[in-house]
């Protein structure tokens, strides 16, 4: 802090507070986890012995290979689902484009583990589809057999990341790029290989590495499908059954973090310097052509098939939540609202807890996000970029790892008044949710701030408003759309978070929805109420997603005709 002039003391103080928060609740716990992984459990010396033990245990070796296999295969399956959809919308005048856009959102409004049980009932060995196939064709397809189940659930859930990124990349290719290649004598496959493919590649890799990261870190889906020989479930089981002193949980955490960082690095690497701003004036996108009738029919067939697959968790969950008994039959035997009554009657604390936790976490995220964005982009504080880097760094920390880190770091810290360890106080769940969702809110706030021309702030200062008054009257109101969108995103995704929460819930009465669903789904009789809770979660997230979508759209429309902003330098 070289130039700590009088004008900078206020942002300086805020910056230090933000830094302290990030250090205490993100950096320290993660460093602690890494440190323990490299520490001899008996002597405390720095050692690689834990890693040697890890790879000498066949269970862990299998888990490691299984996690890699599931993540890799999920990327492939997700690509197979996403590629035709992206291709249809960008190459053809295809009426189903709206359908495909919807497809890109539907899976994301349901956490993967919620749909896992429902998919088991529809696609499992004794599920509806296989019962029908057996009856008609005498075959049984092992969709959900072992790791296949995890791969299928994850692919169906995460393919939108590839679809969205790839479609954006394809849409950003200017028609003139394609036409100038044709003008210079290139066509067909050569044109695709030399122009379209390289231009779209960064978008695809960005989406694919995100899918890899998410699947590799996911805890809820394998747990609910009862697949324990994967890394994240092993970490959870070691810590929850053996205790927080067992080094294996920490070793797994280090491996999870390493692979997360690796896939983020890959996506950054492909995107670096390839931010092709290829769209010139007059709109972009490849040239689209009309479809012949039979082509149109086959396009629709593919889209509908994918739609059915994508909707299967939702359909299954809906049936499960209203069904009485559903076992060895295509559909439930009868329908009832009892599960919902039971959930609202005896398990309503899950819902209120979720609204409280996710609401507080979302609020914390937008306050942190706005403050960090302002300090990074509007002040000259030394080291300000680090707030951004560290805040974004949370993206690379799997929930399991953060949970283990919190347990290890805060178990010995007694919260004064309530006289409980911080690690088992419900507030720590809110903090974990806030830290995990901070990257999304932070990006939303940064984007919102960058929309605000600095001249609008200078004009206020010129007319007599101090920095603080300017932030209050000009900057924050102009950012409000982005801030709200950031809040809703944080809220919606935090309300179905499981992996950090499951480690930190210390009492049933403190548990949120996601944990409740997990608890219910453990027993056959709990499936109905669990599904009802799942539907409630989907409704909460769905409403949140819709609201944030509307807010963003409205902001875009309001800004569009605004000369003052558009003309800003």
């Amino acid at each position: 802090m070289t130039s700590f002039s009088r004008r900078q003391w206020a942002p300086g103080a805020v910056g230090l507070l933000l830094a302290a928060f990030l250090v205490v609740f993100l950096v320290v716990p993660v460093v602690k986890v890494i440190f323990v992984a490299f520490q001899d459990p008996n002597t405390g010396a720095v050692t690689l012995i834990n890693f040697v033990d890890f790879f000498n245990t066949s269970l862990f070796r299998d888990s490691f290979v299984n996690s890699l296999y599931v993540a890799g295969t999920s990327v492939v399956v997700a690509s197979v689902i996403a590629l035709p959809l992206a291709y249809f919308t960008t190459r053809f005048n295809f009426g189903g484009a709206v359908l495909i856009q919807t497809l890109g959102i539907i899976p994301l409004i349901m956490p993967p583990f919620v749909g896992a049980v429902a998919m088991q009932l529809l696609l499992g060995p004794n599920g509806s589809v296989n019962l029908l196939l057996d009856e008609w064709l005498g075959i049984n397809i092992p969709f959900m057999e072992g790791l296949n189940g995890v791969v299928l659930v994850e692919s169906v859930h995460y393919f939108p990341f590839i679809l969205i990124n790839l479609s954006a990349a394809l849409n950003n290719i200017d028609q003139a790029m394609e036409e100038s290649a044709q003008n210079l004598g290139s066509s067909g496959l050569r044109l695709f290989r030399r122009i379209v493919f390289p231009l779209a590649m960064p978008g695809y890799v960005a989406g694919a590495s995100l899918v890899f990261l998410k699947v590799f870190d996911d805890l809820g889906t394998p747990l609910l499908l009862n697949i324990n020989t994967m890394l994240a479930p092993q970490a959870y089981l070691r810590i929850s059954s053996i205790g927080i002193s067992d080094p294996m949980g920490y070793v797994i955490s280090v491996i999870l973090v390493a692979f997360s960082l690796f896939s983020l690095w890959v996506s950054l690497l492909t995107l670096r310097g390839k931010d092709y701003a290829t769209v010139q004036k007059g709109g972009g996108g490849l040239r689209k052509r009309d479809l012949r009738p039979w082509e149109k029919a086959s396009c629709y067939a593919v889209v509908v098939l994918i739609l059915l697959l994508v909707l299967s968790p939702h359909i299954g969950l809906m049936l499960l939540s209203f069904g009485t008994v559903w076992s060895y039959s295509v559909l439930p035997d009868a329908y009832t609202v009892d599960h919902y009554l039971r959930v609202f009657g005896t398990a309503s604390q899950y819902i209120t807890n979720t609204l409280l936790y996710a609401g507080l976490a979302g609020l914390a995220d937008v306050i942190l996000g706005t403050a960090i964005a302002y300090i990074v982009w509007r002040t000259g504080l030394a080291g300000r970029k680090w707030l951004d880097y560290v805040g974004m760094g949370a993206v690379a920390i799997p929930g399991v790892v953060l949970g283990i880190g919190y347990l290890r770091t805060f178990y010995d810290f007694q919260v004064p008044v309530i006289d409980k360890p911080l690690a088992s106080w419900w507030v720590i769940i809110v903090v974990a949710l806030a830290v995990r969702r901070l990257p999304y809110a932070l990006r939303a706030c940064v984007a919102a701030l960058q929309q605000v021309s600095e001249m609008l702030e200078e004009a206020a200062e010129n007319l007599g408003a101090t920095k603080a008054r300017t932030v209050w009257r000009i900057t924050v109101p102009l950012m409000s759309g982005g801030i709200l969108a950031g809040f809703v995103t944080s809220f919606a995704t935090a309300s179905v978070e499981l992996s950090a929460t499951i480690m930190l819930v210390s009492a049933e009465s403190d548990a949120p929805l996601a944990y409740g669903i997990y608890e219910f789904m453990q027993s056959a009789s709990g499936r109905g109420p669990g599904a009802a809770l799942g539907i409630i979660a989907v409704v909460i997230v769905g409403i949140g997603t819709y609201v944030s979508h509307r807010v963003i759209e409205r902001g875009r429309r309001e800004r569009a005709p605004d000369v003052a902003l558009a003309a800003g330098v």
Partner: protein
Amino acid sequence: MSQTQSAAQRATQSTDVTIENLSLSFGTTEVLKGIDLTIGRGEFFTFLGPSGSGKSTLLRAIAGFGPRPSGRILIGGEEVTRLPPWKRNLGMVFQSYALWPHMTVRRNVAFGLEERKQPKEEIRRRVEAALELVGLLDLAERRPSQLSGGQQQRVALARTIVVEPRVLLLDEPLSNLDANLRVQMRREILDLQRKLSLTTIFVTHDQEEANTTSDRIAVLNDGVLQQVGSPVELYDRPANLFVAGFLGTANVLEGRVEAQDGRPLFRTADGIEVPLTEGPDGPCSIVFRPQNLVIVAEGGEPAGGAGAVKLSGVVRHREFLGSIIRYAVEVAGNVILVDDSHQRGQVTLDAGEPADLFFNPDEVVALAG
């Protein structure tokens, strides 16, 4: 009349600006180098220069934006160099107007008075007076995005003058308007400035804008102040080649001045000779304007009066510009531009035809170096 009264108040508030040895750097790049300037009370003063000359940076430094400069800025004798922008009471109109899109026109204009904690009734009265002054009272409840470019410009002006600033700072305020509106708005700004006798600093890269509005102009290039003077002074007596070339079109010949028969004679390496009434000895450039030359076909009637200098050359090309025809004539390896006023049915010279040029040496400006 409250309006005339407050206009009179403003006139007494209006003040002079002094800039002493002002330098400013962005990192290691020096963008202003030792600027010294005095701007008089009530003056319409323009910073003119190409983009990157530092003119906007200088204006922003006066307003208190950007990196802190070295040197001093005084407003009415008070040093403001270390004051934050909100304590300077200088009204700035931004290039993009910087109207706040989340506020109505009325709230935009009221902002500065609210920050000054004026009573509500006072704010309402002054906002309406300011909006009336710029003719936008009926649009007070609109949002900025519902206004045309010219209307936005007027709101920006009203928002600035309503706080009765000591100096009005205008940062290329016309550059976002189309050509017709630009002429109209510059007239309006000048009228407003005269009515309020408000010391005004105007930044532009457009010499026509500068010439038509300014009492005085400071020409900047590369962060260095080139010359200060009235528009006519700058045009007729440029201090250096940059000013000569930036304000209007200039013919420049390089050569030497030597005394001949006791009078200075300018001579280029190619043998062009121009007798001067005054001029420095040694290496020298002479500058003269295209409209100071008369062009006739070779061997035609001499023109330009008794002492006229004659140059002979060949027409290289001809451009029809409406009111004038501009010839480029090659004379001993130099291309000289000549403007001939256009009349209907006039005989013109074609490329390749030999021509004689005549001009009065009194119109020539000699610059040493």
